């Protein structure tokens, strides 16, 4: 049996699945239930300064994007950080941590960008007995307009500065949570590292408007006829998150900086992908909000079964496995040639491959009056769109041409050598160098 225990910057948990800072972690009742269900850790819903609590809207706070059969693909929210008094949260955190000493208890914090504010809150957080803190530099709405959240996360200098304050005023491990609402994720990650942060976590939500009510002309969710942008999360944002995690993992300046992967983790497979791209653990929000805490059983059992199947003994062994295979486009082997192959026995004759290839510029699939669809090798650029649109899994595959075989599209034999753009004759830079 694979060992799922996780050691994230010295914080131990029985498995690498933490609940992300969000409504499922906003109070003792929830977190107890989550731990009882088997979650490895939680990042408590973001705490703000002492004083009058935060005020949320009193109308709907979520917008949603559906797939088939009303499956939730993405949620957008306009909720703020915790709206419960600081004292109450701190007391609850203390109690829960005491009762669940083996679980990771991280406290998310967002206070104004002044050293005193951090100096005030950090000792009180430390007193709860928690295992670490996460700096919420990610919220794209509500708090950012007040100079917090993503307003900080979008300025690398601020990230570095706040991280330094935290490292000065607490001995707890510091995780910086990054916003994806930025052009190049490596800059804030580098700033966090320079500031002394122990780890980064990403992504927070993506600025978004999910839909417009075409009767009232208000964005959804609509608050008395008006809407505001919110933060998008769930399966739909996973590709954005995976790329950002990989970017940080393979950036020489941040290489080795521990990463907590967040964004659309819904099944064990998503988690395995985050781990492979360099995360050391994952955090989950939307999936728990949509399906409840019970999904942890599938997440842990699934990851464990897959690790057993592949012979991975520990989570750490999986972490970063795919990072060496993430490269820049210019280093991709241009001498790797494939062609689409259609299994005529599996084909159900829907013609989707034909429509896709015909109208997507290649015209590399022929259609007979009997609805037999065949690939024209002389036209096939191997884009694999036909594979993607075919409703029958495995019916269309991409077959590699062996070295020496003629690529009918170019008339050239396939070379057995690795050759990329940097050495390609069509590359002006290559020619200039000659």
């Amino acid at each position, binding site marked *: 049996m694979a060992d799922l225990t996780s050691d994230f910057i010295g914080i131990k948990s029985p498995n690498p699945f933490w609940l992300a800072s969000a409504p499922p972690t906003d109070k003792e009742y929830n977190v107890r239930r989550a731990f009882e269900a088997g979650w490895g850790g939680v990042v408590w819903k973001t705490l703000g300064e002492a004083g009058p609590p935060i005020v949320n809207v009193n109308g709907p706070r979520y917008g949603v994007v559906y797939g088939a*059969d*009303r499956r939730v693909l993405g949620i957008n929210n306009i909720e703020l950080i915790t709206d419960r008094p600081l004292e109450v949260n701190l007391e609850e955190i203390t109690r829960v941590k005491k009762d669940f000493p083996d679980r990771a208890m991280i406290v998310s914090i967002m206070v104004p960008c002044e050293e005193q504010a951090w100096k005030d809150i950090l000792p009180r957080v430390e007193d709860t007995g928690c295992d670490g803190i996460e700096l919420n530099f990610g919220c794209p709405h509500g708090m950012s307009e007040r100079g917090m959240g993503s307003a900080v996360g979008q300025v690398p200098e601020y990230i570095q500065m706040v991280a330094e304050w935290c490292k000065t005023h607490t001995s707890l491990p510091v995780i910086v949570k990054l916003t994806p609402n930025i052009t190049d994720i490596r800059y804030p990650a580098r700033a966090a590292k320079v500031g002394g942060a122990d780890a980064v976590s990403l992504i927070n939500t993506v600025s978004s408007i999910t839909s417009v009510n075409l009767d009232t002309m208000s964005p959804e969710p609509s608050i008395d006829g008006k809407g505001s942008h919110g933060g998008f999360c769930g399966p739909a944002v996973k590709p954005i998150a995976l790329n950002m995690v990989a970017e940080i993992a393979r950036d020489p300046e941040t290489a080795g900086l521990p990463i907590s992967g967040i964004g659309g983790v819904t099944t064990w497979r998503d988690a395995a992908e985050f781990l492979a791209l360099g995360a050391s653990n994952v955090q989950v929000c939307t999936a728990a909000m949509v399906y409840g805490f019970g999904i942890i059983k599938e997440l842990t059992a699934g990851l464990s079964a897959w690790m057993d199947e592949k012979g991975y003994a520990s989570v750490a062994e999986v972490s970063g496995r795919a990072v060496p295979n993430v490269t820049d486009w210019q280093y991709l082997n241009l001498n790797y040639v494939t062609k689409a192959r259609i299994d005529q026995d599996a084909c159900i004759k*829907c*013609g989707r491959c034909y429509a896709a290839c015909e109208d997507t510029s290649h015209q590399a699939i022929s259609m007979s009056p009997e609805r037999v669809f065949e690939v024209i090798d002389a036209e096939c650029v191997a884009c694999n769109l036909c594979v993607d649109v075919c409703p029958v899994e495995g019916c269309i595959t991409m077959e590699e041409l062996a070295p020496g075989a003629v690529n009918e599209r170019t008339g050239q034999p396939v070379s057995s050598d690795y050759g990329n753009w940097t050495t390609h004759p069509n590359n002006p830079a290559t020619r200039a160098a000659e």
Partner: protein
Amino acid sequence: MANTERTPGVVAGRLAAEALAENFGDLNTPFDGHEALVAADRCYFCYDAPCITACPTSIDIPLFIRQIQAGQPESAAKTIFDQNILGGMCARVCPTETLCEEACVREAAEGKPVEIGRLQRFATDAVMAAGVHPYDRAPETGKKVAIVGAGPAGLSCAHRLAMNGHKVVMFEARSKPGGLNEYGIATYKTVDDFAQAEVDWLLQIGGIEMVYDHKLGAGDLTLDALTEKYDAVFLAVGLSGVNALRAEGEDHAHVRDAVDFISELRQAANKSTVPVGRDVVVIGGGMTAVDAAVQSKLLGAEHVTMVYRRPWDRMSASEHELHLATSKGVRIITGAAPTRLTGGEVVTGIEFAYTEDGPNGLAQTGETFTLKADQVLKAIGQHLDGAPGVLDLDGGKIAVTGPGRTSQTGIWAGGDCATGGDDLTVTAVAEGRDAADDIHATLMG
């Protein structure tokens, strides 16, 4: 004492009112909004989709399903009605398992086609429930067309002609429109008087005058009179003649044509007034035989047996319909031909001879058996009755070429009474529509 399934003879009221209401209720429950979305999502939007080819009216099925997906069932309905103005009825009565749904690639892939018929009903019901008629009539052309027979073929032709601005007068022998939609189709396929509601909706196009209780060939309504007075004539009289058994004893009481029995049932507001036997034998292997057998059972007959003279796979009723029959408790015997009906004043039994295919066609083996029967329903086919003598016939039907052109210029024909296509509602609609287009092109030359 009230009658039961075991009351001997041909009697009414074998079942309680609630049981009858349940039995003759909607066979296929309509989709609600969410179910329709889930069903619509299964469509692959195939290229040059096989379902379109399989539909006799060539409805752009992937397009209308996509319109349902996109939240506009009304637009979906318009896509359907553009090709098939009786799309609402067809959604209920088409044997989709041998038409569009048989061609669906998901039938090939997993044996579960997209439920096209039910989706079509979802879309068309949305428009009809709203009472919207999404077509306007073109300016009057001054041309007049006579249509004989207000069944699916006639109605489809009338709508298309009226829409193009022609004046249409429909002559119908019965006192109600709809043809077999009103008098033939099984009750549980078209509940809540849908046939009449659909005709009312169709006539909203305007420019169509309905003349009921006027039969071509009776009184002064002759083909000559029509060709003289109108710019074109479309014949859509269906098949009103019923084939005889030609077996001894056919004239015993309680031996009747299945179509008459069905028509009486369809017209009965209260099904508990329709008499049915305890031991019913239906002769035939088509849709009419199945409908008569199933509905006898639903009325409370204790034993219903359907007997067809050829082997099982030669029955024209689809597997789906035969399955419906057996699931309702109808017993089906194939390969047996009726030879003799027994009884005195009323029928009491019917003798069959087993058959086999031989060099000279179907032959009786000599082995016989007898079924107890207090009611016998004959469903061995209909034929064209009283075709005007001037028209060429082919295999007993009015011979037509192309879009319904008969041997006489200025006279078109379509639906069951004309050659070409299967005897189905949807085929009748397609033929009526195509004839209308041809008449329009000819008149506007």
